[in-house]
């Protein structure tokens, strides 16, 4: 039985917008990021990457590099220990150690351009780079596979030799499809036969990258006593520990990962690329600290982007606007090794709708591109684009109001998701009602200037959010302040949003909290910052720790006041009993005779999370002569449960929208015939800049999550999903043409307009 809470609404701390504890250090440049790490005797690592997208490694000759002055060590896959096909948790998903070892340093074959084949440690970065460049690799070049159709063709070259696919429970050899799964209920075929409107489309989208500003980095020391120390930019230090220890073949207890600040991750910094390489180079270099930093083109070519792919989508409805059935095939590119976000896509795809019949088939397809990783609501944006594109067409064909139709078919408490899970209290209906009443929806779009046309799109999306494991320690100081340790990497202001939840319980001002994120030896296990779990799960650990601290203090006070613990009441920071009263911060200075300072710790392991829904409205203007698009107004409506820090929550929503609009309008992996990513720089990988975005308006709907005492729901991920279809439908309305392929870039619009 899962604990549920009755939420209240008169908070003292929760819902305010205090200044973040890490703000000053970050704006002044004092904060220490992975790239800033220095250690005595530090040397530099560099890697050699494959120029081919698909090739067999015939021979690697490292002798010239090894003989160079200033070179300490050269590393190839054969320096890694043999590991089993064991899976370890990163806190968000699982990593197959053997495959990941081959992903971070190729074993016999390269699966994508930029795949690392060797590494060097040398006295400085230039020497390391020059040494890497003189390593000679003989390749047998194979033809690259760049899309799911080619990968699934009968005569397709096999990317991962020895892979045994799981195709609906059957073991299949010689395949590029790692998994085919299905979720099904109701009689889909019969429902389509009895529908007044049936629309079937196939949409496709390109692989895209998170585009975090800070490059991947790692510094490691493998000391003579066998202890390994790591510094690395990550969304979760314990994930780095598990992956590094697993790949270098030592127990996790031998690896200590120090927390450093992170300059963006969005899911891409849950996977480890450099830390095991740095550790092995350090060992080969006699225990010297070794540091590696990736450059931007390598980040594009060889980290973990979001999968592109293809989705077939068929939806039926009655003439009075009820959905009868939905059926989809989702094919996502996992990249060079198995494991795309197709599983999550299958959970998200129909989750906005209450369906009588549903059939979801997912395909995890290998292609010669970098191994995909999590990117903000992994799988949800692709799925949302597919279903919302077809829903829009159904609304047009049936003459249904686009929000009213969604309301009448909305998922609610008790609705079954495609995989059978039944929803607890969710807030989609409230979001749709709020959208319907919004100033944006009620306002006309306005006339476009000459030569331009305007359109409005609306779309919704779902993300399940994450629970998982988190730890928080609280230490009350003599001066009444609180030292707080928690294990979650702080990406979006979570030090503060977690501390606020403890502050609410304790009645201590948030400014009197000193939150820290210690190394993995100094805090209990805490999963990755991802899945939209941190403010919810680590926040709940803080809440529980605060209650434990109150209980501890009641015991101490019982000694001081010579009464029973049960007689002591605690309310809004004040203890009372038998007419006595004392504030918690004053009590902090009087604890010496009771045994010294008071501490409390709490760990949680949450199987479930409250789900998130978003409904977005996008107004967009198109230059009909050039195909240039400009978003002119945007409103994102989202059920946030309870916004602990409304500015951060709003910032998360706005950031998600911008990334979603980039995906919709311009971002793509532009792959050449030889399987290379042509646009591997920020100049040509066209993410939106601040000059491309209007103010993103947000409406935060608060339907409390019954699984959290303050009603908190994860916020950060779902807002990336609706923009894909909202923008595409707006362009459709403006130009009178439909778009089934992302990005809807100016060239595609122009082509559609000129094909009359």
């Amino acid at each position, binding site marked *: 039985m899962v604990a549920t809470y009755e939420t209240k609404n008169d908070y003292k701390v929760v819902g305010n917008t205090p200044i973040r504890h890490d703000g000053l250090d970050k704006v002044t440049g004092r904060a220490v990021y992975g790239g800033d790490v220095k250690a005595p005797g530090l040397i530099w690592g560099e890697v050699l990457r494959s120029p081919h997208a698909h090739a067999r490694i015939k021979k690697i000759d490292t002798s010239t590099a090894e003989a160079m002055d200033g070179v300490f060590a050269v590393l190839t896959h054969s320096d890694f220990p043999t590991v089993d096909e064991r899976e370890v948790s990163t806190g968000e998903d699982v990593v197959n150690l053997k495959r990941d070892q081959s992903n971070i340093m190729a074993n016999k074959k390269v699966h994508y351009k930029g795949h690392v084949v060797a590494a060097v440690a040398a006295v400085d970065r*230039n020497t390391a*780079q*020059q040494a890497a460049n003189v390593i000679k690799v003989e390749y047998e070049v194979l033809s690259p596979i760049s899309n799911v159709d080619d990968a699934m063709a009968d005569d397709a070259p096999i990317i991962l030799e020895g892979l045994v696919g799981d195709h609906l429970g059957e073991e299949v050899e010689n395949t590029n499809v790692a998994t085919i799964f299905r979720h099904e209920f109701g009689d889909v075929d019969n429902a389509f036969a009895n529908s007044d409107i049936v629309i079937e489309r196939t949409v496709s989208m390109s692989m895209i990258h998170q585009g975090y500003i800070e490059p991947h980095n790692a510094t490691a020391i493998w000391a003579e006593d066998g202890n390994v120390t790591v510094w690395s930019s990550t969304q979760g230090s314990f994930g780095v520990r598990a992956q590094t220890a697993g790949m270098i073949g030592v127990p996790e207890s031998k690896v200590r990962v120090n927390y450093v600040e992170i300059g963006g991750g969005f899911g891409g910094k849950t996977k480890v690329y450099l830390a095991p390489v740095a550790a092995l180079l350090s060992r080969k270099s006699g225990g010297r600290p070794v540091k590696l930093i990736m450059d931007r083109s390598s980040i594009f070519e060889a980290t973990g982007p979001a999968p592109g792919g293809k989705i077939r989508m068929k939806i039926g409805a009655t003439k009075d606007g009820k959905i009868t059935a939905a059926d989809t095939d989702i094919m996502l590119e996992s990249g060079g090794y198995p494991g795309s976000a197709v599983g999550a896509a299958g959970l998200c795809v129909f989750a906005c709708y209450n369906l009588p019949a549903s059939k979801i088939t997912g395909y995890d397809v290998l292609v010669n591109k970098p191994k995909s990783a999590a990117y903000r609501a992994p799988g949800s944006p692709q799925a949302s684009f597919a279903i919302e594109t077809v829903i829009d067409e159904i609304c047009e064909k049936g003459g249904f109001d686009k929000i009213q139709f969604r309301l009448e078919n909305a998922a609610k408490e008790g609705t079954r998701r495609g995989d059978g899970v039944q929803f607890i209290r969710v807030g989609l209906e409230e979001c749709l009602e709020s959208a319907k009443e919004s100033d944006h929806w009620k306002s006309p779009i306005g006339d476009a200037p000459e030569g331009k046309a305007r359109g409005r799109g609306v779309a919704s999306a779902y993300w399940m959010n994450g629970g998982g494991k988190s730890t928080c320690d609280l230490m009350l100081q003599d001066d009444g302040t609180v030292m707080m340790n928690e294990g979650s990497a702080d990406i979006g202001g979570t030090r503060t949003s977690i501390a606020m939840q403890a502050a609410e319980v304790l009645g201590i001002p948030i400014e009197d909290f000193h939150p820290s994120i210690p190394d993995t030896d100094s805090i209990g296990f805490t999963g990755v910052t991802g899945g939209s779990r941190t403010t919810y799960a680590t926040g709940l650990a803080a809440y529980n720790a605060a209650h434990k601290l109150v209980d501890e203090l009641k015991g101490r006070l019982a000694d001081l006041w010579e009464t029973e613990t049960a007689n002591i009441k605690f309310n809004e920071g004040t203890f009372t009993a038998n007419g006595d009263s004392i504030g918690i911060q004053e009590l902090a200075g009087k604890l010496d005779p009771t045994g010294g300072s008071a501490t409390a710790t709490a760990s949680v392991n949450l199987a479930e999370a409250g789900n998130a829904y978003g409904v977005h409205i996008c107004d967009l203007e198109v230059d009909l*002569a*050039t*195909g*240039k698009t*400009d978003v002119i107004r945007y409103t994102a409506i989202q059920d946030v449960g309870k916004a602990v820090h409304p500015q951060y929550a709003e910032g998360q929503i706005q950031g998600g929208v911008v990334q979603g609009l980039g995906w919709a*309008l*311009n971002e793509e992996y*532009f792959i050449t015939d030889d399987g290379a990513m*042509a*646009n591997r720089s920020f*100049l*040509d990988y*066209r993410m*939106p*800049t601040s*000059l*491309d975005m209007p103010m993103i308006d947000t409406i935060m709907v608060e339907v409390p999550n019954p699984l959290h005492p303050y009603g908190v729901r994860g916020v950060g991920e779902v807002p990336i999903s609706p923009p894909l279809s909202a923008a595409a439908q707006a362009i459709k309305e403006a130009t009178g043409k439909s778009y089934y392929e992302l990005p809807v*870039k*100016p*060239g595609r619009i*122009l*082509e559609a307009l*000129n094909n009359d």
Partner: protein
Amino acid sequence: MHPFAYVAPKTVSEAVSVLAEHGDRARPLAGGTDLLVKARANVWDLDAVVDVKNIPELMSLSINGAGLSIGAGVPCCQVYEHKDIQEQYPGIIDGASIIGGIQIQSRAGLGGNLCNAAPSGDGIPALIAYSAVAKISGPNGNREVAVEDFATGPSRTVLENGELLTSIEIPKPAANSGAAYTRFIPRNEMDIAVAGVGVFVQLDSEGKKFESARIALASVGPTPILAQKAGDSLAGKPVNDESIASAASLAKDAASPITDMRGTVDQRKHLVEVLTGRMLNQAIERARG
């Protein structure tokens, strides 16, 4: 990248001798916004970098009755913040003010843009349209080359071993003239041209007839292109939609783009036609004051 010599000569002849000594393994450094990228990416393998910012001629910016002289090391921001240039050469400003962001514009200059010889150089089409000339010094003395002839291919120029671009000379625009440059990019700033068009028009005193015109294109060929026929077609023609459309169509014919990650052949040719029309109209508006 490996260690290289940094040389900061005070005269053109010193710079020329260092460049001549190292050949391809030395490059002049002005703003460095292209040089540093190419050196770090190992596109260039350099033994020496010749900083030209201590050479007075290369840092001078002057405007007088004869025209405008832009030293090869003068950054874009000095050009577009200059009141007289804003008044007399709006087409130059259009280009100089959209190269990179503000930080880049504070370092990068039109001289470097020309020497980098990217087909997409936003500073170049307007210079061609204004009939600008590149002044070059080298081991064998000085020479002048029309800007449209300066680039010979992507990243290739007429500069011979040891030669250095010293300044760009732009004649004073005739009365009743106007110019403009724009590019098409999918974003609003900080992007590279899918296609770019710069035009210069000289009208009669009533502003009703074209006396002459020059049209130059970016990103639609291996070098920036002077669309000679398109510009010449306007001489003597009335200023109306028909003349403009016909010149735009000829400009489209002059474009010989490729399909790549930034755009397709058809898209780029179409854009040249659209942008030529738009820029002619803007230049006409400016010519009429």
